[in-house]
């Protein structure tokens, strides 16, 4: 049996997803908000509104379209930001939606999961995290 150990244990209270409180920073601006761990998302996708709060010129970033499970599409722009959560700090590309109205911020594989060891026991509403060095 594999023997796993992690640096951080987090019990998420929300019943609608694996919600992680975080601080996202761009330059000297920072916003405390939350994101949802999403193993099915290829990248980290945040709302346009959070980008605006950070003072980001969203459409000046790297353009990228994402497809959804329902067949819809989402136009986004990538920017390098710093994400701090549960004592872990990562420098990552986050894709901000072109338009306002994205219901939640997604912490996906590239830029988040790919930089972590991640364990999940959904039954106990518990995630286990370590930063890969």
């Amino acid at each position, binding site marked *: 049996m594999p023997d796993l150990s992690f640096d951080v244990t987090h019990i998420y209270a929300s019943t609608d997803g694996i919600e992680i409180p975080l601080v996202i920073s761009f*330059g000297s601006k920072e*916003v*405390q908000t939350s994101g949802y761990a999403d193993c099915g998302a290829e990248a980290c996708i945040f*709302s346009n509104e959070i980008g605006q709060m950070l003072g980001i010129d969203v459409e000046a970033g790297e353009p990228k379209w994402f497809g959804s499970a329902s067949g819809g599409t989402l136009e986004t722009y990538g920017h390098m930001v710093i994400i701090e959560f549960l*004592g872990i700090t990562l420098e990552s590309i986050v894709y901000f939606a072109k338009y306002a109205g994205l219901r939640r911020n997604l912490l996906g594989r590239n830029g988040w999961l790919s930089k972590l060891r991640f364990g999940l026991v959904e039954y106990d509403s518990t995630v286990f995290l370590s930063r890969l060095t």
Partner: protein
Amino acid sequence: MTPTQPGQDGILRQALELPDEQKARLLEEMLQHELGSSEESNRPFLEKLDEALTRLESRIQSGSTTPESAVTRRNSGSRRRPDPAPAMEWLRLHSKEYGGEWVALDGDRLIAHGPDAMEVYAAAEADGAYLPMIKYIEPADALPFVF
């Protein structure tokens, strides 16, 4: 307010003269040492250390040092962040009352709420709270989320 001890002031001044990397390391060690102390008389010194670290991180963010250094330093836990637990608990208890709105929370204190994200953000900025939790609350009747 208790005045800062002269010896500590001198150490702090010398630390601020060092190159950024050494300065960050030394200030961080000093901060961690002081955080471990329960002496209230050290409080002004602690505040100066924290201010110095914040200034240094701002300089790093503005580009005078590589971003990876900023990440490394932040991972070392030098920066004080608000505990998100009170805000998350408030959200758990009150989300149904504010569905479809943005909220700004200072711990478990609601600063502002409304449908316009930037208006809520502006109200939070005007309030002056340090790093309020700003979040959109999905309507109670929203369909289960699948992106």
